[in-house]
């Protein structure tokens, strides 16, 4: 390589690095205290107006980084906790909470309005604040059950009955959060030792397992738009209690009733938390943002954006939710510490039991 070329190369690389640095320094307003950065997973969503209200009131500009799915986002946050990408993390749920806490992801802060959180959602300590909740439940295709004059299932026990043979599709518990939720729900129902027997029966009853929610819902479930187009033949799917309202809201024209329903006795409750990241560069802004997440304005904005339910007293949910996808009356729950203790082992034995 002659000198001329070397020189050109060095100059070229210098330019690339310079431009990169230039853009990053102008970008990283987090060093200035006027920007607050939220790190979340890719389901984060908020109305424009609600967010700009916060920006106006607080004087902070909000930057949002969405970091893959829930599991990936939490792991990335843990990996970078010494030099975090933002100030607040939103979206660690009860299946991952212990991992985040054990790794010291958050610093203490009690958000204003924490006293308005309904009792059932509160957690010990002040490292995280519950923000929203949702139920992972079996959804059914109403048309199928009407046509076959069959009662939709209402419990875990129903799903292993011959009447429902080959009707259910669920997700891979090792890569999908509804899949994991359904497994945990069955473990809560049948106990640490009983769930494996249940899954053996479920397998014998023809449960189909696909990799992720998108595929289960849009390809295999006969009650969804995609499923109808793909001639899907499974009228039962593991999804969310808020899926039927979505089927109404995102239809044109809007139907009078939801095409799908929720099997109420098959639910597992998910709660999502937010917290102030350890080593946050703008902890003051982060605290203000956490307070904002508990305001009625934000809590009431969540359902139609993220399809979850609020956790504070007195927050209203849209009519579509109360009508087509009310919260489960008596969902299965499990202590985050217990989930942390068993999760990997259970997923492992579930995999060899159901997939092999």
């Amino acid at each position, binding site marked *: 390589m*002659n000198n001329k070329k070397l020189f050109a190369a060095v100059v070229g690389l210098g330019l690339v690095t310079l431009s*990169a640095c230039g853009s*990053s320094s102008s970008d990283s307003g987090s060093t200035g205290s006027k920007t607050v950065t939220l790190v979340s997973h890719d389901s984060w969503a908020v109305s424009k107006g609600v967010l700009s209200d916060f920006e106006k009131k607080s004087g902070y500009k909000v930057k*949002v980084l969405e970091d893959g799915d829930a599991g*990936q986002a939490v*792991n*990335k946050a843990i990996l970078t906790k010494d030099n975090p990408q933002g100030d607040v993390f939103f979206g660690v749920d009860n299946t991952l909470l212990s991992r985040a806490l054990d790794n010291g992801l958050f610093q203490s802060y009690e958000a204003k309005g924490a006293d308005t959180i309904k009792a059932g959602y509160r957690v010990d300590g002040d490292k995280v604040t519950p923000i929203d909740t949702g139920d992972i439940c079996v959804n059914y295709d109403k048309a199928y059950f009407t046509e076959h004059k069959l009662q939709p299932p209402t419990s875990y026990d129903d799903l292993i009955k011959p009447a429902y043979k080959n009707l259910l599709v669920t997700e891979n518990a*090792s890569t999908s959060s509804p899949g994991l939720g359904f497994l945990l729900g069955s473990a809560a129902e049948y106990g640490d030792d009983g769930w494996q027997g249940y899954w053996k029966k479920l397998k014998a009853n023809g449960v189909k397992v696909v990799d992720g929610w998108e595929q289960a819902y849009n390809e295999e479930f006969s009650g969804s738009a995609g499923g109808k187009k793909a001639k899907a033949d499974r009228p039962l799917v593991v999804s969310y209690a808020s899926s039927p309202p979505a089927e109404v809201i*995102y*239809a044109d024209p809007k139907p009078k009733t939801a095409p799908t329903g929720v099997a109420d006795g098959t639910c597992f409750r998910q709660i999502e938390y937010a917290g102030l990241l350890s080593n946050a560069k703008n902890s003051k802004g982060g605290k203000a943002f956490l307070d904002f997440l508990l305001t009625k304005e934000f809590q009431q904005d969540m359902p139609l954006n993220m399809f979850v339910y609020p956790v504070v007293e007195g927050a209203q949910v849209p009519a579509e939710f109360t009508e087509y996808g009310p919260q489960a009356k008596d969902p299965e729950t499990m202590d985050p510490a217990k989930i942390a203790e068993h999760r990997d082992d259970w997923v492992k034995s579930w995999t060899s039991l159901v997939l092999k």
Partner: protein
Amino acid sequence: MAVPVAFFAVFFAYPVAAIVERGLHTDGTWQFGRILDVLTQSDIRHVLWFTTWQALVSTALTLLVALPGAYVFARFDFPGKQILRAVVTVPFVLPTVVVGTAFLALVGRGGLTDDLWGVRLDTTVWAILLAHVFFNYAVVVRTVGGLWAQLDPRQEEAARMLGASRLTAWRTVTLPALGPAVAAAALMVFLFTFTSFGVVQILGGPTFSTLEVEIYRQTSEIFDLSTAAVLTIIQFVAVGAVLALHAWTVRRRETALRLVDASVTARRPRGAGEWGLLAGVLAVIAVLLVLPLAVLVQRSLDAPDFGYYRALTHSDGGVFLVAPIEAVGNSLEYALAATAIAVLIGGLAAAALTRRDAGRFVRGFDALLMLPLGVSAVTVGFGFLISLDEPPLDLRQSWILVPLAQALVGVPFVVRTMLPVLRAVDHRLREAAAVLGAPPWRVWREVDLPMVRRALLIAAGFAFAVSLGEFGATVFIARPDNPTLPVAVARLLGRAGDLNYGQAMALSTILMIVCAVALLVLERLRTDRTGEF
């Protein structure tokens, strides 16, 4: 040479080393014992075996199906050839979730094979293999066809005059000349399928698992970084072995060839045999590539008067802060930047690698540049996060990170497409130019560039397509107000409701059209200065 080396070191070697170190270097000591622990697990060995096996078969199948296609594109003129060449590249830009949908319509329940013969291939290994052919058809057509179009047909004709049969002439003249390009294409297809992720998950079902899937699970779900690090090392070793084998077989065959301008080698097919071949290739393309894509288009039109498309222009869907249609602009910006970087770095690397005085070290670098294709995207991504987080390289939140990461995949392609052509250029031409007093850059411009221009455009088109469809890196700095097309499609598919599904299909269709149009424009860039050589 320095630029590609630095680029490779900073944006690939350093992040990957950082994440592997994080996994294996705990409590102040290296946990090399972990490697044995992992290797002795039977299911890991099974995964490794399946990964290798399906990649080899996919590669063989792709070559088998696509080589006739490469020939047809290189040697025949037929109406619509340009458009078709762009269309076969379209699969590359589609998110796998969408491809899964399309493919299930072909081989799944109520799909074409089901209707015709009552055969369902979904959740079988055949669906995976076919989808790999679907994805990588363009790799072969572009890499091999690019060189094939420039081979002088008169050489084969001369052999025929001397009494060789058609087959013998092809076997003794054309095949050896094509060897390096075929090997390069095979290598790329192997690496792409070796690290296959979405296809295996969606079409094979959760019972099939590749190394890439396993690394993703260990990193993203279980958070067992040491196992992930071991798996990454295993992936490295396997890919390294393949690269070494490739280098060893190709090195002995790259010779100077007679290259002519591509526009003079193509002609209308003659005789029943040639027409039959053309018809066969077109039929394969129609069934394997066009049909799945057509399914998506059809589903996107499934609402009265373009309802799904009209919905894309509203930002009140709640999924984004902007109208989903704005993702088109974002995607194009990233893709243009990534293409520019890939062509610059790849071009410099290719030029350095063809120098006569290139030593062993430089030649070894040739193989190294291919590594990014064979290493898990999750590994590189997590590596970026923990390594590029301090000034002067605090790129975590910079937009430049996306095109840089995408260029990592583009560069190998640029190098692989250009090298066979550059190495085929007769060195005496360069020497003659130098003797006549041309400085090195001028030699390159007058001798190499005219011959390599076509390969460069093919490579640029591919780098563009890779970036347009790339999903992993964009997730890193995805913001709700600037999604790219694949990110937007994935988010729409992640929600219940007819309109969301329809919009995802509509946006996928737009993604296909953007890709095809961009590639056509690139192909048109060829100035009509027919190289006289």
